């Protein structure tokens, strides 16, 4: 398949994919690696990495295994990133598609609405939403989705508008197809590639957002996450650097992996679309 060929010529993208699979595997295997869970106190606090046997990354302020927290933290990062992205797509794609396809006042209203949400500083809105809805996995995911959909709507609108201007859409109209059939059957499939690329980058952004919320203490209190680990260690940065260093590194690697994959997808999917047709 030529898509894989093109994707695999991008070394960064392949590296990102391997890295992501690694993170996914760790997240899935967490209960087998650390059956006691991330909250168990295993040793005295503030043990530096490799100070005690089996505690490769040391212990935190309460004597919990940092590595165990990291491994469990992967689960919440990936979960929130994925689900909030799907939710954001569910808002942004239909809104952008209708705006771009119908134009006129539909477009006007949809875009004013989108613009409004884009003007609001999105991290501040996420903070307010989570604070008011009480921190939980659900409220965090929802808040991230609510602040992430506007770029999707704009992208889909622009793509739909450009595809709708193509002559094959005129041809579909002349074939007597209904608007919905044209939009779903002819227009949207031709906008999928840029949406996929954007979605992969959105998962990355969502992971960053989630970690930032947790850092501020707005994480789900029952779930160990990378942002929480850094946030809890913030005040002891002078004495125990490793407590904030390793979770941050985990975030960077995961986000980097997703960004690299996004770039690879972009190279593999988009430039050829106009001439080659199928991706």
């Amino acid at each position, binding site marked *: 398949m030529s898509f894989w060929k093109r994707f695999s010529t991008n070394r960064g993208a392949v590296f990102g994919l391997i890295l992501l699979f690694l993170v996914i595997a760790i997240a899935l295997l967490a209960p087998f690696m650390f059956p006691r869970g991330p909250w168990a106190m295993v040793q005295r606090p503030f043990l530096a990495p490799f100070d005690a046997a089996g505690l490769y990354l040391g212990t935190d302020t309460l004597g919990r295994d940092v590595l165990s927290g990291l491994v469990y933290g992967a689960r919440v990062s990936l979960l929130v990133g994925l689900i909030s992205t799907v939710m954001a797509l569910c808002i942004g794609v239909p809104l952008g598609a209708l705006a771009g396809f119908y134009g006129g006042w539909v477009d006007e209203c949809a875009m004013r609405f989108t613009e*409004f949400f*884009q*003007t*609001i*500083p*999105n*991290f*501040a*809105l*996420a*903070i*307010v*939403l989570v*604070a*008011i*809805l*009480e921190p939980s996995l659900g409220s965090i995911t929802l808040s991230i989705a609510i602040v992430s959909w506007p770029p999707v709507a704009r992208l889909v609108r622009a793509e739909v508008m450009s595809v709708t201007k193509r002559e094959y859409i005129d041809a579909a109209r002349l074939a007597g197809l209904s608007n919905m059939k044209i939009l779903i059957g002819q227009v949207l499939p031709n906008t999928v590639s840029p949406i996929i690329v954007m979605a992969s980058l959105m998962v*990355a952004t969502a992971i*960053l957002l989630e*970690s*930032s919320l947790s*850092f*501020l*203490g*707005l994480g789900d209190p029952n779930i160990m996450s990378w*942002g929480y680990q*850094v*946030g809890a260690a*913030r005040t002891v*940065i*002078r004495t125990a*650097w490793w407590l*904030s*260093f390793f979770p*941050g590194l985990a*975030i*960077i*690697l995961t*986000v*980097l992996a997703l*960004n*690299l994959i996004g770039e690879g997808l972009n190279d593999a999917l988009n430039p050829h679309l106009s001439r080659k047709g199928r991706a």
Partner: protein
Amino acid sequence: MAILGPILGRLLKAAITLLAIAILNFFLIHAAPGDPAAVIAGEAGAADEQMIADLRAQFGLDQPFYVQLARYVGNVVTLDLGYSFRQGAPVLDLILDRLPATLLLTLTAFGISLVGGIAMGVAASARVGKIGDSLLTGFALLFYATPLYWAALMAVLVFSVNLGWLPGFGYETVGANYTGLTRMWDILSHLVLPASTLGLFFMAVYMRMTRASMLEVGQQDFVKTARAKGLADPIIRRRHILRNALLPVVTLAGLQAGQLVGGAVLTETVFAWPGIGRLMFESLAARDYNTILGVFLVSAAMVIVFNIITDIVYRLIDPRIGHKA
């Protein structure tokens, strides 16, 4: 004059947007679980029965919904953002007290990221495919993936704790009572780390955009025309490519302003920078919703100001806007 009309339009739009955010705020208060009055007072026990009763009367919670809404929006319009029972002061005073620090931080970060990002983007595009380009692109990719707060913590660790070059805490040296130039210098040294760590992420964003835009504009016909005239490459890059390539970067910078202002919450938290972001963080722990929502409204207003600035810049660069074709 060509610029005034659209700016008036922008201001009108800005006012409408702020009004809409005020309305959103109102709904958010009502969306919170429990009694809105208790929410406003801070439900963690700050409020006694009497205070909640007063609040109920003040907010007219027995009134019909739309009356409550009108009253709330009316308060916001008259710059009454409510009272912080936690801090014992009107929210507006709290915010105005902290706003200068945040403006200094965000504007500096915005400037650093824009200038640095564009410079690096131009440099990378001029060396496309060579080692310099790979290094700059790699740098951007890395900072694009780095959480703001983590970069800030690491900066404190390296430059403040280990090297001791720069202060990693606060707005100025407490108790030093510097004045004049010495004070400015003191504030500046405190500003370096927060502003550059806040700017890094956005620098990466603008660098990527500038590079892509320079490469794309470099393919356009008028660049070939410029070559055919016999112009030297540096002149072509500066006079023909760069100006055209800046347009999408400026647009993006306007769109990113919101993220910059939001990011300030994290940076201010790490550096104990006494701005509205730090105020928001403190209010989160105290569940001081009046203050949280006030900060939210003011930061949205800041974003609108950023947007108007980028709008003006765009008009200055692009003659096609404002002229009648």
